[in-house]
């Protein structure tokens, strides 16, 4: 039995390495490194202050995961800070929900491995529903929010980061490489490379380039071991769980399969990106595409350890309301998606 399990894990592992699935992540790692070094975090975080306009807070909260949540461990302190000292419960929960789902690595990896429809569904679902969850939370707890003493946010973050054209052209060329390489448009990929190198030569110092490469390598070191472990576990799942069980519980697009998928996702802990190969394994075994999206939405946003922290920050009542909303929203999004895309 045990040898069978390990065999399953190893098979999946080798399959991955030979299929170059991870190669699609290489440009994404470089982009993540670039975001970490050159985008000023302070310029984003100022929209989470107590004085910031509501509409701005919500929109920034729903999309800023791309910039701020490249590592899942940064999400909880930010959430706690926005909740206690900044814009309050609405934007804080919006950020908590969408943050882990929309970082650049998660988007690229989901789209490549699970299909463009699920990749896009994940991004759009996370952004839209984070705003809805945030608004509902803010509405339910509007009285308590008023009593909270607003404190100024002391950022303690160095300003900096590049601005303007230099940044724009640099990121556009990186994204160009990512997109064109995945489409096998080699001429356009080459052009993007030339643009990138010229941009680096003209606007960036050696010191900055070094910092960027170091940050990129940092992400590779941080994420790759977890990812390989996830692939291994996904392989073991395939051997361990009978397909009929998956088809029965997670197949199709019924309310039941979507709900099971989202509750399972909410309880399980997924380290950065590991949810993707695991969902892929489930899909191969007969999981419906709706439930797959439900799991992808509820999964990284919640886990038992993160629930404990959330309870500690917001108190049990708000925390469980939030958890309930996440499960309901993920289920609903999954059902809608499954309805249109199966």
């Amino acid at each position, binding site marked *: 039995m045990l040898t069978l399990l390990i065999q399953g894990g190893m098979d999946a592992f080798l399959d991955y390495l030979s299929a170059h699935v991870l190669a699609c992540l290489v440009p994404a790692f470089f982009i993540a490194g670039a975001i970490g070094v050159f985008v000023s*975090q302070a310029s984003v975080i100022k929209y989470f202050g107590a004085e910031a306009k509501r509409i701005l807070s919500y929109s920034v909260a729903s999309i800023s995961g791309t910039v701020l949540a490249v590592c899942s*461990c940064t999400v909880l*302190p930010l959430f*706690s*800070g926005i909740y206690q000292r900044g814009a309050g419960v609405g934007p804080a929960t919006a950020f908590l929900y969408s943050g882990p789902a929309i970082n650049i690595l998660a988007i690229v990896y989901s789209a490549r491995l699970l299909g463009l429809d699920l990749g896009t569904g994940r991004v759009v679902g996370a952004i839209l529903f984070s705003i809805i969850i945030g608004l509902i939370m803010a509405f339910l707890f509007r009285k308590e929010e008023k009593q909270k003493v607003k404190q100024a946010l*002391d950022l303690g*973050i*160095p300003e900096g980061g590049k601005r303007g054209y230099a940044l724009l052209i640099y990121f556009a060329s990186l994204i160009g490489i990512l997109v064109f390489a995945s489409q096998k448009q080699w001429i356009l990929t080459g052009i993007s490379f030339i643009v990138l190198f010229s941009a680096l030569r003209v606007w960036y110092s050696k010191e900055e380039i070094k910092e960027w490469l170091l940050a990129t390598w940092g992400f590779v070191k941080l994420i790759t071991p977890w990812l390989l472990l996830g692939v291994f576990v996904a392989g073991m799942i395939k051997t361990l769980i009978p397909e009929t069980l998956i088809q029965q519980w997670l197949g199709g697009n019924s309310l039941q399969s979507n709900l099971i998928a989202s509750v399972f996702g909410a309880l399980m802990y997924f380290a950065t990106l590991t949810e993707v190969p695991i969902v892929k394994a489930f899909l191969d075994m007969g999981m419906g595409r709706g439930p797959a999206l439900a799991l992808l939405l509820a999964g990284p946003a919640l886990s038992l350890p993160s629930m404990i922290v959330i309870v500690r920050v917001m108190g049990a009542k708000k925390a469980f309301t939030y958890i309930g909303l996440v499960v309901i929203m993920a289920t609903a999004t999954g059902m809608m998606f499954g309805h249109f895309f199966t």
Partner: protein
Amino acid sequence: MKKIEILGMGCTRCNQLADRTREAVKELGVEAEVIKVQDIKTITNYGVLVTPALVVDGVVKIAGKVPKSEEIKKWLEEERK
């Protein structure tokens, strides 16, 4: 005796910061205790949003970035004067 706190919930970059700080303390021979703070409420009370962060004697020196060893040493020294 200095009190140096490393704020962060156990991510790789926090450990990196802790290692660098301990090294700096050793090299300078400053009397200091280095504590890792993982409690989220304490972190938030410092007003820190992005971890890891370095706090020397209750003052936040940097957040969201692992500083270079020279920078850490500078902070440790300027406090001593």
